[in-house]
C-alpha cells in the first residue's frame, strides 16, 4: 500500500500547513529555533547530526564579529545558489583561495585535512544536510533572486528562512521541517515583490511548480 501511504503523507502535510500558517511569526522563519529544541513555528523539525569529513565552522566564517565570526556573506561561498536550482557545495578551490594565504591556521588539524584534499586534488565528500524526496524540485535561484536581489534582504535572513541561523552553527544541521505544508505556509503569504514597490505577490501554489 505504498501509494496509499504516499497520498496520506501529502494531505496531512497540507492540512498541517494550513492550520499552522496564521500563527507563524516572521521571526520564526528567520531565526529557526535554538539547536536541540522545538522550533518556534510549531514543527519539531530538527534534523539529525550529520558528521562531515571536515567539521566546518560556519560560526567562524559567517558568525557575527561579536561572537568571533567574520561575517562573510553566505553567497560568497555558496555561489551556485543564485545561479542554479541546486546550490551544490562550494568548490574546493574556493576554500583554498583564502586558506592558501592564511598562514596562521595552516597547522590546525581541520585546515591540514583541507589542504591534504587539495594536494590530492580530491573533492571533499560532503554529505547532504537538507535532502528532499526525489519528486520535489526546489529552486534556490528563484528564492535568492526574489528575497536577496529583488527585496534587498540580507542573505543571512533570506537563507535563514529555510536553513535557520547557520551562522551560529559549526557544521549545518536541519532546523526547519522542509515539508510541503511548511513550504506552502509561506507561499500562501503575501510578500512585497521588491524593495521599492508596495505591490505584493505570493509564491506559486501550483503542484507542477515543484512536482514534475
Amino acid at each position, binding site marked *: 500500500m505504498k501509494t496509499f501511504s504516499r497520498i496520506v503523507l501529502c494531505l496531512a502535510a497540507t492540512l498541517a500547513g494550513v492550520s499552522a500558517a496564521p500563527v507563524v511569526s516572521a521571526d520564526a522563519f528567520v531565526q529557526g529555533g535554538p539547536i536541540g529544541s522545538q522550533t518556534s513555528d510549531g514543527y519539531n523539525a530538527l534534523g539529525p*547530526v550529520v558528521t562531515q569529513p571536515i567539521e566546518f565552522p560556519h560560526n567562524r566564517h559567517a558568525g557575527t564579529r561579536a561572537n568571533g565570526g567574520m561575517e562573510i556573506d553566505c553567497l560568497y561561498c555558496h555561489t*551556485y545558489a543564485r545561479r542554479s536550482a541546486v546550490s551544490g557545495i562550494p568548490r574546493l578551490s574556493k576554500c583554498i583561495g583564502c586558506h592558501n594565504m592564511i598562514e596562521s591556521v595552516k597547522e590546525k588539524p581541520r585546515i591540514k585535512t583541507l589542504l591534504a584534499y587539495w594536494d590530492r586534488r580530491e573533492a571533499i565528500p560532503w554529505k547532504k544536510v537538507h535532502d528532499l524526496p*526525489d519528486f520535489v524540485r526546489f529552486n534556490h535561484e528563484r528564492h535568492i533572486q526574489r528575497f536577496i536581489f529583488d527585496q534587498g534582504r540580507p542573505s543571512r535572513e533570506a537563507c535563514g528562512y529555510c536553513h535557520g541561523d547557520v551562522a551560529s552553527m559549526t557544521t549545518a544541521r536541519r532546523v526547519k521541517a522542509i515539508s510541503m505544508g511548511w513550504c506552502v505556509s509561506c507561499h500562501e503569504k503575501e510578500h512585497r515583490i521588491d524593495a521599492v514597490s508596495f505591490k505584493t505577490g505570493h509564491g506559486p501554489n501550483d503542484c507542477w511548480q515543484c512536482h514534475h
Partner: protein
Amino acid sequence: MIRFGMTANSVASGVNRRDFLNLVGLGGTASVLAGCGNTSIESGVELVQSYVQPETFVVPGVGVYYASTCTQCGSACGIMGKVREGRILKLEGNPQSAISGGKICGLGQAGIQGHYSPDRLKTPMLKENGVLKATTWEKAMSLLSGTVSFTAQGPRRVVLTGPTSGHLQILLKAMPQSGAATDHVVYDSLSTAVAASVNLKMFGVEQTVGLIDKAGLVLSFGNDFLGAGDSPVAAARQYARFRKAERRGILIQIEPKMTLTGANADRWVVIAPGTEGVLALGLVRELLQRKEFANNLSPNLIAAVEPYNQTEVSHITGVRGDLIPRIAATLWEHSPSLVLAGRYPQGHAHGSHNMAAIALLNVVLQNQGKTLWREAELPFPQMAPALGNFKSLRQLNTQMAAGDVGSMLIYGTNPVYSTPDFMRFADNLQKVPFKAAWVTELDETAMHCDLVLPLMSPLEDFGTHVAAAQSDGMEISIQQPLMEKLHPEARSFGDSLLELLKQAKPESYKSFPDYYAYLKSAVVNAKPAFDPKVEDEEFWENTLSAGVLRRPAALLPLPAIEFSADLVRQPLRESRDAAYPFVLIPAVRPSMRDGKAANLSWLQESPDPLTTVVWDSWAEIHPSTAKQLQVNEGDVLVIKSAQGSIRAKAYLIPGIHPGSVAVPIGQGHESYGRYATNVGVNPFKILDPIFDEETGELALYATRVAIMKTDQNERFTKDEGATNLQQGRKLVATLAADQVDLAKETPFVIR
C-alpha cells in the same frame, strides 16, 4: 533553445574539463532510481555534488552542451550532448552543422544507449579452449604486435573495417603502406557501390549530389532518403523545404515495397521487383516524344529505348499503362525534376543496368546543373570516406577459405551476422590463425575471434568524420568525448592503430603519444584552410567548441560523359521458378540499418513506421497474396530459399508487390547484448548467391523464396489498434494540393 550559447565558451580540454566530465562518484546518482516511491528525507546520507576546481561555466544542476559527431550511421551529423554532473543526459542536433542543422533522428538519439549499455565489453578477452576469458591489455598488445610484420612474404594480414572517414581512415590507409598490414578491406553489407559505379560511368563521379529542395518534382525509384537513406536528417530538412516551396514539390515513389519515403509520396506506385529500369526506359521513350527532349540523347540510346512502349513496359513492370505518360507529363510540368534511385533497383543481377536506366532519366531531363551536382572539392582528400562494398569482402572470403589469410583485425563491422550462409564466412574465419576484433559489445563476429578488445563508446572518443555527397559547403565533423570513459579498460581504436603503426614505422609516428595528440596535431595542421589568423591552441579549442570545421564551397557541375547504350540494357524477362514463386525483400529499417542498432532498447521499442511492430521480425505480404495462401495476420510462415529458411509471422500490408515477401533486416542476433539476442530472424542468412553482373556486389533483392504456412498463429507486438482505418473520424485529414494556398500560411524557419 536554452543555453545553446554555452557551447561557444564551453570549450573543453585538459584537466579542468576532465574534472567536469568525470562521473563524480560523489554526486547524487545513487538515488537516481529512487523515483517517487522515495518519500523519505535522508539528510546526512547522500553526498553533495562536489568539485575540486571546475571551469567557471560549471554550475551544479545546470547542463552544459558539448558538440560532437554522431556515428550511428555514415551521415556525420553534428550533435550536442547535454552534460550534467559528469553524465551525458541527452543528445541533440548541433545547429552549427550544415548536415544536421540542429536536428537529430531516432537512431542518433539512441546512440546514448549504446554508451550506457549494460552489456558493454569491459576488459580485453582472449580465447582459451574455445572460451573467451578476460586478459590484460599488455598481453593483448603483445599478441597484436606479433601481427606486425615487415615483409611482404607469407600469408595476408588484413584489417577489416566498416565504412570510415577522417583521420581514422588516414591511419587505416597507412596500415598497408607502413607494412603493419597487407590489406585494408572496407565492407558494408548495405553498400551503395552499384550506384557509385554507375555514377562514375555516366557522370564521372562516384557520388552525385541531388538537391531535393531545388526540385519541383522528385521521382524516386525506391530511394528511402527520409528513412534508411545515406543522410536522413539532411534529406528530411531538404524535403521540408521542398514541400513548403512556393509551388509545393511533388514526390512520386516507385518501389516493390513501401519505404518510409514511399509512405510520404503524393503518388506511390508499386512495381514488380527488379523491373525499375524497364519503367525508367519507358519514361525516357515517352519524354523523347516531346521536342524539348528529343535531342538530348545519342541515336544509339534512342534506339535502345525504342522497344519500351507503353504496353510492353506495363506488361513487364505491372505498372498501369496510362500512368506512364502521366508521370512523364508531370516530370515536364514540374521541372526541374530530380530522379533518385535507391537500394531496391540496385539489388539485382542487372542492378547496374537498372540504375543506369534510371540515371538516364536525369540525363534526358537535363537535371545536371539544376538539381544534380558534384560535391565541392574536399580540402583534404585523404580524409574522404571509404564507403565500402561487398565485393572486396567476397574476395577476402575466398582468400580466407584458401588459408591465405594469416591474421585479421576487425573494427566497426559484423560480417558473421551480415553475410549470407552460402559464404560460410564464420567457418572461413576459423581458418584464419589469428583474428582480433574491437567492439563495444560482444557481437557475432567478436565471438568468433581469438582476441576481443573493449572499445570506447563513440561518446567517449575523439575523431573526425567526413560525410559523402555533402550538399552545403564542405564540413569536417569533429567527434569529442562527452563523458569520461565509463569502463577504464576501454580504449580508442585509433590508439591501437597508432601503436601498431609506431612499431612498423617508428620515425613517422613516435612524436604522437596517443591518438588524441595525433588528431589534435592533424587538425591544427589544417588551420590554414579554415582560420589561418588564430593561434593553434585557440583554433583547436574553437574547433572542439563548434563541433565542425566548415568551408563554404559551391557545388560543381557534372561533366558530360559519353556512354554506350549497352549500359542501360535490360535483361529479358526471367521465367518464374515454380519452386520459389516469391521474391524476398530484406527491408532496411531506418532505425536498425544493418543490425548495428539492434542492441538499443529504445529502437527495439520504437514501432516500425509502417507496420507499428516492435521487438520482432515479421513477413510482410499483400492482402491478395494472403488470401491466395489462406494466411491471416499472425500466422507463422516458413520462408524458404534454396539456401535455407526462416520463420516469421505474417503481417498483411497493402504497400507491397503481391509477388514478394518482405522481412526486415536487423534482428535475429545470436550475440549482441540482452536487447538484441533472441529477437526475430535474420534474412541475410538465406540470400541466394546472386551478384550484380557489373560490380560483383551482392544482389539483396534477387533471392526467390517459397512461403509455407504453419499451423501456428501468434499475436503481434504492435502499436496499432484493431483497425488501421480512420472509420470516418477526422484524425489525419488530407487536402488536395489545389485546395490550399501555402503562401498564405504563417511563415516559419525550417532549419
